[in-house]
């Protein structure tokens, strides 16, 4: 059970949240290859990962989390518009 600091509500147990993986904006123009990458390809790094979670059983807001996928240490969470590029 991870403990995730919702930027709106504070630290809460993982079971209150739903995972959103890497956020990828919709490409405006896309050939089949680009479209396929958008639909199906998401990052799966070993190490730090900037991912999204939503506080489903709380404030229902999406936010970003920077988590190490090898140790599960969460180094930062924050509002979506403050997510590092």
């Amino acid at each position, binding site marked *: *059970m*991870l*403990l995730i600091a919702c930027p709106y509500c504070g630290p809460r147990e993982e079971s209150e949240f739903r995972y959103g993986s890497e956020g990828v904006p919709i490409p405006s123009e*896309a050939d089949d290859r680009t*479209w*396929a990458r958008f639909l199906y390809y998401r990052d799966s790094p070993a190490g730090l990962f900037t991912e999204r979670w*939503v506080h489903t059983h709380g404030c229902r807001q*999406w936010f970003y989390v920077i988590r190490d996928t090898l140790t*599960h240490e*969460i180094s930062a969470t924050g509002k979506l518009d403050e997510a590092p590029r």
Partner: protein
Amino acid sequence: MKRLPTGGRIRRDRPLRFTWDGRELLGFEGDTLASALLGAGVDVVGTSASFGRPRGITSAGLEEASGFAQILSGGASEPLVRMTGVGLYEGLAAESRIAKGYLATDMDGGRFDKRYAHCDVLVIGAGPAGTAAALVASTAGARVIMVEADDEVGGALLRDQELLDWKDQSFATLAAAPETRVLTSATAATMLDQNGAIVAQRIGCRVSPSARGGLCEQRLWHVRAKAIVLSTGALERPIVFQDNDRPGILLASGARAYLHRWALAPNRGLVFTTTDDGYRTALDWHAAGVEVAGVIDPRPHGRGELPQKATSAGIRVLHESVVETTFGDEAGRIRAVRVRTPSGAEEIQTDLLAVSGGFEPFLDLHLQRRGPTRYDATLGAPVPSSTLPRQWIAGAANGSMTLRDSLTEGARAAREALAAVGFTAKDWTPPTTAHIEEDAPSFLWLVPAPDGDESRSFVDLFRDGTVLGVERAVGAGIRHIEHVKRYTVIGTGVEQGRSAKTNAAALTARLTERPLATVGTSGSRPPVEPLSFRLLAGRATGERFEPVRTTAIHGAHVALGAVFEPNGQWLRPNHYPRPGESMEDAVRRECRAARTAVAVMDVSTLGKIDLRGPDAVWFLEQLYANAIGTLPVGKARYSIMCRLDGSILDDGVVMRTAEDRFFITASTGHAAAVVDWMEEWLQTEWPDRRVFVTSLTEQLSTVAIVGPKSREVLKDLAPDLDLSKEAFPFLAVRRGTVAGISEAQVARVSFSGELAFEVSVPWDLGAALWSSLLSEGEPFGILPYGLEALQVLRSEKGYIIVGQDTEGTTTPYDAGLGWLVSKEKDFIGKRSFARPALKAPDRPQLVGFLPEEPSFVLPEGAGLVSRVSPPPMEIHGHVTTSHWSETLGRSFGLAMVKGGRARHGETLYAPLEDRVVPVTLVDAVHYDKKGERRDG
């Protein structure tokens, strides 16, 4: 062993009766089941897994390798419980089953609870290091939780009889601190990321069944701590030698614990130790008047104080000597050993051989989250090389084996932890401890069998894994300790291989001629100690397994005799059988009412969403495949929402209640997902758009009233609404008073294909609405109908159910809904339609079918082929919906068939278990193709 006349921490004034394999025995309050058995002269507690050799208790704690039993006196019979951890109580009943247990019964009378706790500092282990840490943390004002697996606090202090007064004072201080909680009989079992811990606390299982009352047997704690101090101590390891598994061979520290805590001692004890610590057992026996046959020490004479004390006390010490084999009596219990000394072999008689192969830090909790370790050559064991964030390790667990170091480390750990969580430690002085000069331990690991027969030199008692097995593994080409483990199953027992792993690694290192440090030991998987399923389930069983969601009208359904069907977490009426009526008959009756008279259905579980804002239209145009902007205020439109890949996410009805306000329905099963979907897009892709989404699913009850007479029934209940076809056409939405409920919403939408009105009122008024409709409709023959009848009605109309007629890849075109897909605008999913596979002509498409035999109802799911042959047959499609139609007077259904729309009129075959049923493919709409009844 025998019980000494005095001493120990047992209550001799409180004898307890317990049963072992049906025999009634006596112990005392304060005994464990293990100590009680030993005290009652039961030295053989079972036979081993593979060889059937007699085994006895091997320790006084977590290292126990043989002392497991089936406990019969809990709420249910429980297998493989560690006897050194079972507190004795009156009426305890246990059965000898050391290798395999059994499950006895469905009925478990035990109660198990869960608790959730948060603290600043969690201290795991109440030995000297933990006690120091808890004191420092507690006196600084932090909220402290301390957990100790043993029934008593003190750890090594109890075993070694040290600082007992200080311990008592310390825990009195801790007990008086309002923000400090000390839990005993509480094992920290699993560590969670971000400093959580799962702790299993034994409560009711420590007292008589008759005294248990309402106590839960065990309680599972979920603890979140800002900082954790691991002061879990060190465990002693055995030495491997021939016949090292006889009852009466124990760990030296265990023997000492039995002496001091439970007043148990041998007639004539012998110590075999590679450490100075082992001498304590000999000295303490001696001080208690127990005959000590000697101390066997493979090391040469050294400068250690304890060996000198032993010699001064007249205890015989044999240096540079080893035990090379043992002898047993007729029951298999140890009666003598053969010692190999520099001057030859000697047989020494003993009934308890206390063995110390060294101590190793107990680091399971640190290792669970891959806490790093390094090999300590002095201890011959891994010690932590660093800690996980906001964790500290102190004392023997940290490789600091002296009492003095444990105390100072525990205090330091607490100080650092406090600083990290924002508290300031107060000054604290450790109690005075003597410094004892100790020689370094040696690493013997194993003694070669004198006759070369390594098949009785046990590396793992629980698994009957011997030196011979490890040799075979290495001979097979194995080099890695994990392969040794899997090849020999050494280390996979209930005790997690605690007393086996290091010796196995050392042996492997020796056989492969590598240093132990490079071999390592196999990893540690949680939990530290087994957790019963019931404990993990807690109260979430039976009715509490998962919440039941019911509508406000549920009571009426129950009263009407409804048979319910789970729909997600909801319970929905499936049909309303009259006494003695079959489901089929009930459904026919309900369908007949809906098509020829009037019927009502509780559709409150449908998702209901209020969506409004300046960008509401814009947003809905993105989400839905059909046009939304053209929807007039006061009208509804059947709408399809797609995923990005073009598949149908959900269907529903979008109603425009104002220029920028919409009332949207979603299917019951996808209601939450649709709201989630909307919120995700708005927050992540279009945060600048002003759209407000509110779920109203549980704010409104909705009843559908359907049938040619529905208008007449509703008329008198809604006097201020003009329900005529002209004023209130199909797909219109109005508000008005219905059944005395003001501001009811009435929508002419129809899933049944009949004239129908869906009435929505505030949730709590649903039952009143329902009851009004039923009584108003009585003269018209109104009936309630459920899911099953709805299935028939909607499928007669070719209306799909998303997830039944469609699956995860079905597009609107596949489902015959291409007509509503907008050609003008872009929307979520549109881009995907252009992909080659989504344009393929042989995609499964929705069709209707009619079985050749009009009275035969095909099973849903039946596969359809064009040619019948021995398998394999090419599958052309499958039946998604199949019913008897009261309206059509025959069976019918819907199917997804490859390229189905171009195949109307074709005959396919459904090979079933016992027959092949031909079917003709037809249009999906079987009834009222023009929709005249719906439009009425």
